């Protein structure tokens, strides 16, 4: 660990921000086209974020500010750990549990700050977000657990590297087809895309946790959202779709995967939160358990593969 690691880390943050924000802008356009609209400019997301940072803001006490900083700090730390096409700013710290729990720091910070605003909508939104998390995480973690057991590694980078070199057939999404489906559904839940976006329902609970944010706080939330999207999509990409051998392959796959979720979400209605839980605990959970049992007891797809 030396100064270069931190410099790399910082550069990763900047690059990820630019890449993901651009992609988000493009995806806004995709959504618009799905709705037969012209849509916003591709750089609209940058404009929105900078505008928010430019504005004045209101604060509801120190925890409101502290939570925002803690959230962004935790999320940025997580981004630094994500291996991108074999590159890691801090090698060896890409343990899947570290990433998924460090992500929780950011979420906790955000939840804390939101609830600290004193607005009941925010608390309701947080309650829904946490419930949603409980729903999507269990099937996903079961599949990831299966993978760790099968490949004897919990390192995201290593797991990604193991899938490369066999083309599409090497992807875990193909080796464990049920697990791959679960992962994509869970990704929708993670990203808060429809049909699992009840926690930020704008018309119902006034955008939930975001309700009291304005100005730079809101800007922070947008930046945080971009980073969080990157972490979540990258996690699924690395674990199930083989990551990328080169940075370009990675970016391409990433863009496809992310756009795919956008397209799905563009044609979906919204689940109530208890419906989301029921759904996740019926279909994806069953699929995940079946997948787990198949892999653990038969090795089919992992140890036995062509």
């Amino acid at each position: 660990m030396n100064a270069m690691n931190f410099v790399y880390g910082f550069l990763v943050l900047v690059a990820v921000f630019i890449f993901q924000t651009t992609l988000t802008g493009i995806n806004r356009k995709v959504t618009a086209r799905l709705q037969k609209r012209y849509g916003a400019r591709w750089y609209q997301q940058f404009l929105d974020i900078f505008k928010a940072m430019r504005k004045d803001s209101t604060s509801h006490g120190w925890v409101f500010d502290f939570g925002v900083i803690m959230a962004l700090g935790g999320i940025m730390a997580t981004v630094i750990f994500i291996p991108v096409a074999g590159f890691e700013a801090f090698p060896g710290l890409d343990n899947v549990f570290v990433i998924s729990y460090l992500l929780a720091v950011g979420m906790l910070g955000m939840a804390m700050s939101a609830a600290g605003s004193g607005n009941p909508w925010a608390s309701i939104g947080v309650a829904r977000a946490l419930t949603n998390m409980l729903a999507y995480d269990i099937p996903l973690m079961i599949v990831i657990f299966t993978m760790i057991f099968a490949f004897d590694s919990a390192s995201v980078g290593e797991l990604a590297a193991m899938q490369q070199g066999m083309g599409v057939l090497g992807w875990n999404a193909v080796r464990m087809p049920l697990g791959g489906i679960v992962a994509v559904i869970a990704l929708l839940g993670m990203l808060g895309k429809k049909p699992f976006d009840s926690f930020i329902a704008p018309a119902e609970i006034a955008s939930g946790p975001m309700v009291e944010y304005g100005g730079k706080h809101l800007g922070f939330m947008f930046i945080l959202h971009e980073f969080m999207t990157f972490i979540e999509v990258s996690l699924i990409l690395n674990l199930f779709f083989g990551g990328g051998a080169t940075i370009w392959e990675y970016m391409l796959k990433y863009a496809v995967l992310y756009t795919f979720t956008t397209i799905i979400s563009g044609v979906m209605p919204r689940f109530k939160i208890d419906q989301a839980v029921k759904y996740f605990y019926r279909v994806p959970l069953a699929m995940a358990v079946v997948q787990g049992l198949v892999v653990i007891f038969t090795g089919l797809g992992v140890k036995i593969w062509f």
Partner: protein
Amino acid sequence: MVLDEKDNRSPWEKIGDYFSANSVWMKWYCTGCGAIEMPPTMTSRFDMERLGMGPMATPRQADVLLITGYLSTKTLRRVIYSYEQMNSPRYVVGFGSCTVNGGIYYDSYATINRLDMYLPVDLYIAGCMPRPEAIMNGFAKLIDMIKKGEARGWRHYQENYEWYKKNQLDSLGEVIIKDEFHE
């Protein structure tokens, strides 16, 4: 509204105004009948997102307060409350004739006639009610004004706060508050 002030913004402010102009988030105050014109403006026929505009859920997030029609004195209190929750720079758009001069409710005891007595309106979109084309046109104008630094209603409100306050209080009269259910 004083429009002939000299442009004395700093470069940073100019950049900031550029961002503000291209990302106009609105809080719609939809108690009036004009709100019905917003969905077509938003959806595929007119698609306001082209201009970086969009509806927001709360006043904290929004830049523009859009008053879509008449305001009774009871709702005026809420509008002022919402406006004061917004973060600067913030803009007010009066929508429809009612906000200009009371429209068909000009002689009602319960509504106010001129919105800019109470809040610093940056732009009026006249008509009863204005069609989406008019709305788009109006917003294009607003964006232009913001870009040039001419939409300075929020500064004006700050500078003439007493005057606005007096007008607001005159219109509202005395409000006796017991609790949230009885006032």
